[in-house]
């Protein structure tokens, strides 16, 4: 491996974040405490009196509460709410999911559900707010229903994203350990899915094997419908797009996979609230041996990621990482127009730092790598006429360089690349 980074095999060799070594498994109570402190620090620094949180990833971050994974409108109707007051010692949690409440949440901080979608009972929400905030308080909020807009007036609502983003972008050592554990479960479940891949298997069959195995291995929840997109050999033969670049990711169906199909796999489960992000390229065949051209795509992908990893350490800007990747790809931007070279991962499957998005170069220049950032590199090597290669490498930035959180098997293209 390259640079000052260490692979998972060298895990215990002493990589540190803020001087503390990263544990193999997290101390969850410490993680919740340190995250809450990060929120408090940001509230203080940004002059915000508190937070009202309704988005799943924000509630999970602020409270550590577990919630059964649910699809869109069900998740919304029955969602828990977190309220964080500046200077308070713990978050307030409003939930029906009593079996998901962390043991260390003080009893007087646990309350029944508020149902933010419904006008009925909004007076209870208003009463809860009045217990935490004075009229006119400046309160960060991440999502508002119309029932709330009608019933919760008298506060200076500001977007919670500034506080949440600034807190979340730096992970504690325990958060890094959670991501690594989630990734490990995800990767092990993928071994079983890859084992059944042959002509005649349907995309949903891969989902069935993957999801079953992920839960047997201890996943807390699934985060996203697993993707097994067949990549047409040329852009023209793939789905029509607004920008003329590739369509990705498209939704899994009962599509039958056929000899020679190149599939770009993407899946994410969670463990203790933290998302994994598995990305690999597979080849459908009775005898899946990538041909010479495919192997060259993979080597190019490796070269691009390595070019970024070679310079990755605290102090390096996202813009420099993007430039290094482009240069290693012969001056061609190695990612799809609507995506990025890399993104962060945490309680959201894609969060800051984003590198190479439509936020633009000035934005990227201001994102400077710091110990505790977690970066998922997912460049795409497109080889018009022969599809392409895409995988994802997850690293955490350490005090001196980086440490890899994802595994180093790239079957069927290569092992320990």
């Amino acid at each position, binding site marked *: 491996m390259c640079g000052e980074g260490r692979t998972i095999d060298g895990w215990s060799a002493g990589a540190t974040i803020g001087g503390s070594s990263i544990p193999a498994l997290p101390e969850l109570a410490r993680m919740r405490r340190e995250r809450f402190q990060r929120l408090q620090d940001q509230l203080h620094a940004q002059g915000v009196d508190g937070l009202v949180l309704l988005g799943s990833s924000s509630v999970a971050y602020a409270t550590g509460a577990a919630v059964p994974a649910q699809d869109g409108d069900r998740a919304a109707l029955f969602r828990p709410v977190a309220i964080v007051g500046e200077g308070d010692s713990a978050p307030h949690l409003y939930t029906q*999911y009593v079996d998901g409440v962390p043991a260390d949440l003080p009893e007087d901080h646990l309350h029944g559900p508020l149902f933010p979608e419904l006008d009925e009972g909004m007076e209870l929400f208003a009463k809860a707010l009045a217990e935490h905030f004075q009229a006119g308080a400046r309160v960060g909020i991440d999502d508002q229903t119309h029932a709330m807009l009608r019933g919760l007036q008298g506060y200076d609502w500001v977007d919670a994203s500034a506080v949440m983003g600034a807190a979340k972008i730096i992970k504690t050592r325990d958060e890094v350990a959670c991501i690594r554990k989630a990734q490990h479960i995800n990767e092990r479940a993928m071994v079983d899915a890859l084992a059944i891949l042959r002509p005649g298997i349907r995309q949903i069959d891969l989902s069935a094997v993957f999801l079953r*195995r992920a839960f047997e291995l201890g996943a807390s929840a699934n985060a996203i419908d697993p993707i097994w997109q067949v990549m047409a050999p040329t852009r023209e033969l793939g789905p029509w797009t607004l920008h003329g670049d590739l369509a990705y990711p498209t939704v899994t169906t009962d599509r039958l996979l056929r000899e020679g199909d190149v599939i770009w796999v993407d899946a994410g489960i969670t463990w203790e609230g933290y998302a994994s992000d598995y990305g690999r390229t597979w080849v459908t065949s009775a005898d899946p041996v990538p041909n010479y051209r495919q192997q060259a795509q993979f080597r190019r992908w490796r070269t691009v990621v390595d070019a970024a990893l070679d310079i990755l350490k605290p102090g390096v800007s996202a813009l420099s990482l993007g430039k290094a990747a482009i240069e290693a790809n012969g001056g061609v931007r190695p990612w799809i127009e609507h995506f990025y070279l890399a993104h962060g991962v945490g309680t959201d499957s894609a969060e800051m730092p984003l590198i190479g998005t439509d936020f633009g170069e000035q934005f990227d220049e201001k994102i400077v790598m710091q110990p505790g950032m977690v970066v998922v590199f997912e460049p795409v090597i497109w080889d018009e006429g022969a599809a392409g290669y895409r995988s994802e490498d997850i690293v955490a930035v350490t005090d001196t360089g980086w440490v890899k959180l994802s595994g180093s098997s790239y079957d069927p293209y290569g092992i320990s690349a």
Partner: protein
Amino acid sequence: MSPAPRDRGVLVGMMGLEDDARVDFGRLRAQRRAKVLSGMERHDLDALMLGGVGDVRYVSGARQLGRTGVLPFAPAAVVVRETGRVHVLSTWDEGVPPEIRHDDLYGISWNPANLAASLATIPGLRESRRVGTDGLTPMFASLLSQLVTSAELVDAAPVMVTARRTKTSDEITCLDVASAIAESAMSALESALMPGITERELLAVYYESVASIGAPVAPSESVCFTTSTYGLAGFRYLASDRPVKDGELVVLAPCALYAGYEGGLARTRVTGRTAPPGTADLASRCSRSMDALMAACRPGNTGADLYRAWESAGNRETQVPLAHGLGLGAEPPLIGMGRGRDATLEEGMVLSVQSWIAEEGVGGCLERATVRIEGGAPSTLTRYGRL
């Protein structure tokens, strides 16, 4: 289209048939859109900007990537009354129905200002006076008013909740199919249930079952839990790693999505051979209470009638809903947990109705069904033997 079959069972499958039996998705979408546009007219809304998963699906019919949890509001579909067009946040056309044209799509942006700039090009949006949304954030409130439209942003619920409340016949068929998939998962769970298996392993069996049928997105991962024989059993939501013990009552509650529509049911089963003493009484109280709730599910009745039915069966208020709407996921009304006494039941609504009873020293018993409100007695879309 072949004649409407007298045996609706022929509709309950996921494969397209040569005679175009089963769901006519073009008609399903057209009817939904017509309900939305007429609602916009009635409530004087010039446009809708929607971010909720169910609302986006309802107006567009686009296949969306299944993601769990709640994301903060962002406009993923736009409906303009004047043009009658539906615009969808999608960078590609795969999964987008044919009536939504390429120039009706707007692309993925990470920078919300760029998203707002794309929205601003949607014909008719800028000139709108009143725009309904199904949520907001302080950031979008300011971006939309600065970059997209000077319209008043109001609640889209009078249009969307009303349109979604009663189901068309194609929607009922989708709910039927979802219910049948959930029943299939129930059989898989029942076969797998034995002393020593963990809740998480049962959840794994559930996922394998629904995914291999072709419905890999779970409406909820809360699909099973053991109920404690110590103290008063609580309703639990999260799968644990504790092995199920011989003689424990286990709740099996699978659900499934078909074309976005959710069906689900729950039954309670004894693990192994020996039921704890008192099980028969508990089970009969549970089914008696379920029958009482079902009997109250009639058009014109209100949530208060369900509360009364529940109490008259000898129960106190529970910590879980007695009923809630079903359609593109969970929908209002919510009846139970102190809410929904005033909610009125209408013919054509579909509800998830449940009876949860716990008895100290025995365990807990849950029965849940997907129920269609009809002219007379309700019908259950889910079928499965009781305890």
